[in-house]
């Protein structure tokens, strides 16, 4: 029977004393606890030893016990104060009232104090305790140093047990290893300890020394230590997936300013200057900086379309306020001015910002999945076709569309996907065909299909998260263990 070096050490130790606890084996073999546990488990599986497990109790100091060990029992502290001549009333200045009360109870039990006419005085015994330990102190120290508590002290132990959180009794499992008959037989046949080598070295290979050594056999089935490789953030994986789906579908990726002028974020998108979405509680405004003017023709065209449609005085000043873009539609809107040859299909998956208090379902910044198609022949049903295709490639086969409203699209749709677990439809965001009031001032005479959908939402659903903040908390526990 093949025995490892450690198994042999244990058998030889048990030959001298056939029944030993783990602690005893650590002493007798000089092996670490982990090795003994592992090797004895193997020996037991080979039926060379029996392992019995006994539940034992161990006494340790609880938090008050630790405090008393470091700072003294309440009765000791009071005793010291009395020695300094403090009166009962003055005790409360140095110690809490509760501590003083406890101390006096125990000092009285030891006959160390007496109360005469409301005055607390040290007795003869009390004087003695100034020079020697009280019994409870002796017991506490013994336990702290894991020494055996003698029979005479048993009563003191009981007192301490009853005194709240001084002692803590913990159960643990003691393993006892005992040689079996088979084990004894094997030993009788003789066990030869050879030096086993765990690592084959280049030197051994070079010198041929490997011929003279025994390479230890491994426990090849035990779990290996955990290692974590480097990988993408789980949400990045999803973003990259979405990007590659768009690219497969022929879309070109675009980027635009993160700090954006209100002109591109709102005005060019036909959002009137007093629209609620432009209010301070929804949009982050930038302090002390003002945007430069966009090209004069766009400024004039946009001003004209606002004033004609909404009948109010459009102010350039308001259009030049800088904001953190509230949607990447600002970026696609800029793209309209660059359009030359049709058709054009572009997308962006990028950060947008809303002035929200962050909680389990709101973020102040998140990703928007944005895209447009510019073509004279493009229609609403083509838009629905693109979105259906896109989400089906992401694994969301159930998608539906409802009428909706956005200032910059007409017709507008709300896109919803079905949450299989929650059995309900969840809103993903909006889409539509850009209004003439948006595209004409920017020089486009074609239909523009557009969408701006939540990036985190599908991820949130796929990973069955219940708190959106999980995505950006970057807990290693989550990142390292989450998978597809």
């Amino acid at each position, binding site marked *: 029977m093949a025995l490892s070096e450690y198994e042999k050490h244990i058998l030889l130790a048990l030959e001298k004393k056939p029944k030993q606890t783990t602690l005893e084996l650590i002493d007798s073999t000089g092996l670490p606890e982990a090795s003994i546990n592992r090797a004895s488990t193997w020996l037991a599986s080979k039926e060379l030893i029996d392992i019995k497990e006994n539940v034992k109790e161990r006494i340790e100091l609880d938090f008050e016990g630790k405090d008393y060990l470091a700072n003294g029992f309440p009765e000791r502290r009071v005793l010291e104060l009395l020695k300094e001549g403090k009166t009962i009333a003055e005790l409360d200045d140095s110690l809490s009232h509760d501590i003083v009360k406890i101390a006096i109870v125990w000092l009285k039990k030891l006959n160390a104090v007496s109360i005469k006419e409301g005055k607390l005085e040290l007795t003869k015994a009390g004087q003695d305790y100034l020079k020697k330990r009280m019994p409870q102190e002796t017991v506490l120290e013994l336990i702290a140093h894991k020494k055996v508590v003698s029979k005479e002290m048993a009563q003191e132990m009981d007192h301490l047990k009853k005194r709240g959180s001084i002692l803590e009794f913990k159960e643990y499992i003691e393993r006892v290893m005992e040689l079996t008959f088979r084990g004894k037989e094997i030993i009788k046949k003789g066990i030869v300890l050879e030096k086993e080598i765990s690592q084959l070295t280049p030197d051994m290979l070079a010198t041929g020394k490997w011929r003279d050594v025994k390479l230890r056999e491994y426990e090849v089935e035990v779990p290996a230590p955990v290692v974590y490789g*480097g990988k993408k953030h789980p949400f990045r994986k999803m973003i990259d997936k979405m990007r590659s789906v768009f690219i497969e579908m022929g879309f070109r990726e675009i980027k635009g300013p993160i700090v954006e002028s209100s002109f591109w974020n709102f005005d060019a998108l036909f959002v009137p200057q007093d629209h609620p979405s432009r209010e301070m509680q929804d949009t982050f405004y930038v302090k002390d900086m003002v945007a430069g003017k966009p090209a004069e023709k766009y400024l004039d065209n946009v001003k004209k379309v606002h004033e004609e449609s909404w009948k109010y005085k459009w102010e350039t000043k308001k259009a030049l306020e800088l904001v953190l873009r509230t949607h990447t539609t600002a970026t696609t809107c800029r793209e309209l001015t660059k359009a030359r040859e049709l058709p054009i299909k572009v997308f962006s998956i990028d950060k947008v910002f809303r002035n929200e208090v962050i909680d389990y379902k709101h973020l102040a910044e998140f990703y928007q999945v944005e895209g447009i198609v510019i073509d004279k022949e*493009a229609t609403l049903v083509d838009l629905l076709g693109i979105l259906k295709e896109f989400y089906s490639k992401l694994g969301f086969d159930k998608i539906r569309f409802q009428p909706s409203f956005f200032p910059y699209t007409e017709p507008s749709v709300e896109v919803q996907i079905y949450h299989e677990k929650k059995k309900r439809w969840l809103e993903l965001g909006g889409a539509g065909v850009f209004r003439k009031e948006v595209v004409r001032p920017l020089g486009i005479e074609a239909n523009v299909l557009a969408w701006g959908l939540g990036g985190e939402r599908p991820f949130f659903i796929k990973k069955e998260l219940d708190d959106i903040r999980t995505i950006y908390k970057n807990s290693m526990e989550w990142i390292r263990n989450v998978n597809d």
Partner: protein
Amino acid sequence: MIEVDCNELCGLLGKKVEKDKLAERISMMGASVEDVQGDKMFIEVLPNRPDWLSVEGLARSLKTFIGVEPGLREYKASEPKIEVGVDKSVERVRPHIVCAVIRNVKVDDSLIRSMMQIQEKLHETFGRKRKKLAIGIHDLSKVTPPFTYKAVKPTEISFVPLGMNIAMNLKEILERHPKGIDYAWTLEGADAYPIITDKNGDVLSFPPIINGELTRVYEETTDLFIDMTGSSEKTLNEALNILVCMFADRGARIEKVKVGNRILPDLSVLEKEIEFANVEKLVGVKVSQEEGKGLLERMGYGLAGKKARIPCYRSDVLHEDDMIEDIAIAYGYENLKPRRTIFPTIGGKHPEEAMADEVREALMGFGLQEVMTFMLTNEEKHYHSLLLKEGKRVEISNPKTKETTMVRTSLLPGLLEILSGNKHEKYPQNLFEVGDVVMVDEKEETKTRAVKKACVVCADSNANYTATKSILEGLFRELGKKIEVKGKDLPFMIKGRSSEFARGYIGEVGPEVLAKFEIDVPVSCFELELY
């Protein structure tokens, strides 16, 4: 969000419809049903349809949409008997007023609820919190026409405001009445306040703050006087039409009022040309003249020859596209077949993102874990924790919390924060982020420039400069670029253990900074600009 009682809605529809069906039809009409609790339905009304802010208006549209009574509903008003004088003094404070009279109204519980709801919602959204529009509804029998809209000194006039039992002057109302306190901002800076009085000088309303107790509407009330004041005449007329139609739907009679030299409300039907062939160009479905007519009627329009007749309560129909959208809604979004059309284009990554992808891949090859952090931060975390002076940055003028007062200019603080939050997890923690920061740049139109950066942190009991520099040099090798570093002490690094290179730095983070982030192991790091 409005609250609607299903039974009431069905009553107005004149047809019993199952609750689920009702919710589904309302959603497909373009208002989303957020929740149903018992007979109560909670409906999100989008800003283009303020006429749906009352159960009457919703029922009116649903009635045509589900085919109970399709077609245009025209509203009539009788000739004016009452005049409202508009004094020049209001021009500076609250220039516009529109009015109407409602006769023979049956005031009951459900009407009062509906009235309050539509007032509140119109104030909130359409009325931009009463600044642009405020509504007063009065018991006409308690006052004597003609009425006057004028501006007076804050202490000139006293009256008993709604819900009070003592007379207060306008200044006192703004200071002490709950509504006065809430809406005082709408009159900020004005030296005279708007007021509507009757022939005897009795006060109907102090817009946009509060009505007088005198004209409170009770169940016995039969005739109403409506005033709407605000900054936009267009908005006021639109809202007035919505409100009077709501009363008319309850069987009341609308009576015009002479306001200054105008006769209001104007309930005439607007006509706009519609070409049904354009439906296919925008929506992608063919609609014949015949079908088009039917679809328009489902949405409450009429059709006369080539012209669509638009009901007086619709103010959102600006041109043909708006009508085409309505035609698509009537057609049913659920009946639109998503179409796969290939618009031939070639896709591709943005060069900046392509570069970022390459860097991510290289860093993962070195065993580093990617993280993603927020771009918004605050000065304490971004500068002070790193012992840095505040630099040029994008500051937020209106943050809701102290966490979001600026946009990051560097990725390192975010990564240190992550290490701080993961100190009970297994080390080594070798992390990286590739992400955007925003730098101030006066030359740009937006006065800023987004810059793509990459940052690496190595946290472990034996993390050190050399090991991290190996990764940095490896990264440059992967990118096919050369790197040369030059020793440079940085405030947040250990002295003599940091250096700079073109658009980046590398070093071991100083113990004082680690202590601020409560990180218990050494950290070495580098950060560089990618694009």
